[in-house]
């Protein structure tokens, strides 16, 4: 599942976009400010950054420059500022797309797909003879056997991998996996970790380390 970070300060637009992109099968995190975007960017692996230019605590261009200085993450601007100067600045930063508001839903989805076609991401992690394919959500055992853990378990695994080497707290796992619904609890998280360790054949907690009083950490170095 491809991960999108959406930075949009308009709540109505942000919520609608998040819902529609999620319906298209993307994992979407929506934040409203530049600071929160920077925090989210430091916390995980992202495949695309969809960015509004006018943010309450700074410019989307500034944020894009900071991101491009550190990574090659594709960036797509959605903005009401469509002047020649703005477009030029966006493309100079290295944006893949510059979509003026108001845009059509189908057009946006098409352009997102177009960016992914241009930047195919095949993400996989190898660890101690096992391969974890993040896109197909599969764990390939040393004997070639392919395992497909339950969706939420795999989301947790992806969260741990993308956050490594940072320790992810149980509360953060609950927030990320269940959002505002808060249906999950710490016991559920611990059970999911047990299932994941079983799927990974991780009897001695080598892959997923428990950090006492804090949470869990992806512990594979390769």
């Amino acid at each position, binding site marked *: 599942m491809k991960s999108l970070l959406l930075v949009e300060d*308009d709540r109505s637009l942000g919520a*609608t976009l998040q*819902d529609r992109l999620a319906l298209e099968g993307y994992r979407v995190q929506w934040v409203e400010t530049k600071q929160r975007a920077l925090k989210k960017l430091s916390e995980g692996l992202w495949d695309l950054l969809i960015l509004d230019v*006018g943010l309450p605590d700074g410019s989307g261009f500034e944020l894009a420059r900071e991101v491009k200085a550190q990574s090659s993450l594709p960036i797509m601007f*959605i903005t009401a500022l469509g002047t*020649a100067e703005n477009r030029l600045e966006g493309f100079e930063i290295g944006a893949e797309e510059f979509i*003026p*508001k108001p845009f*059509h839903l189908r057009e946006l989805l098409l352009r997102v797909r177009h960016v992914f076609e241009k930047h195919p991401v095949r993400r996989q992690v190898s660890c101690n003879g096992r391969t974890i394919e993040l896109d197909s959500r599969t764990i390939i055992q040393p004997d070639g056997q392919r395992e497909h853990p339950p969706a939420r378990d795999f989301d947790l695994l992806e969260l741990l991998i993308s956050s490594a080497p940072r320790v992810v707290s149980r509360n953060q796992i609950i927030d990320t996996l269940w959002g505002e619904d808060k249906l999950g609890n710490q016991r559920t998280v611990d059970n999911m970790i047990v299932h994941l360790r079983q799927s990974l054949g991780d009897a001695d907690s080598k892959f997923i380390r428990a950090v006492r009083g804090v949470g869990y950490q992806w512990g594979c170095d390769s």
Partner: protein
Amino acid sequence: MKQQRDRIKILLVALWVTFTVTLAVWWLIFGLRQLNLINQSNLEGAVQLHRHYQMLLWEGGILIASLIGGGLALYYYARREQKRHAQVEEFFAAFTHDAKTAMASLRLQAESLKEDLGSKPSPLLDRLLQDTLRLQIQLENSLSLVKLPSGRLLIEPVKLSNLIDSLRFHWPDLTILQKGDGTVPADVRALESVLTNLIQNAVTHGQASEVVITVSRRGSDRLKVHVEDNGCGFQGDFSQLGKLFVRHARGSGSGVGLYISRQLTRRMNAKLNFARGPAGGFVAELDFPGEAEMMSVAEREEVII
């Protein structure tokens, strides 16, 4: 760029004040010296010359004071005008941002509802979406009208098929046929605005159900974009089309769309002409200069595949 222009204006005011005040001071000193010289050689008229000296001194002083006062007032009003202009621009930027964001949200929600309904017809949503488009065009045209004299264009190679494909999202029920393809030197947003206005006019005023856009080469280095609809056409005076605020009939629009289209086309070093189509529809013809790259229909199909 704009800040530089503002600085130049203030500098010109300062230069004008300095020049005129210096000139007046020089004239005054020169006049007083002349009077002194005459006074030294003409002792008989000394009293009268002294009166002239006093008069010149006072009048010169008042003139210089007036010049300085006028210059300062000019500087003050120029600064105030610049600040006011900046405030208006700031307001327009904030207004545009809010209006366009709200419109994007509205359109997205309407389109989401339509998608959720699937193939079920939803005339209410269709009308709502068409109204958001009308609102968008009116807003864009109003902003273009304000920015036409000073707004910069970013001329780059624009592939017509890409632009036309993105325009299709605006009118899902309208058949837009494209024959031929090419790349023109244009500002993508300006060209989009031109084509949007032409097609919207075909739909709104011509009641057209089909628009055919034909791209062909004219001579060795020009590209012609022929936009023809199957609507009822235009019954008025063609020479009046594209003139600002000229309305041809009640409810015939604000008279801004075609004016902006023509102005934007001119700023892209292209020409826009209107005519009556052979089948009675409306025809608009864009004539682009430069190294227009042509692609045949067959090539275009290959690209799509």
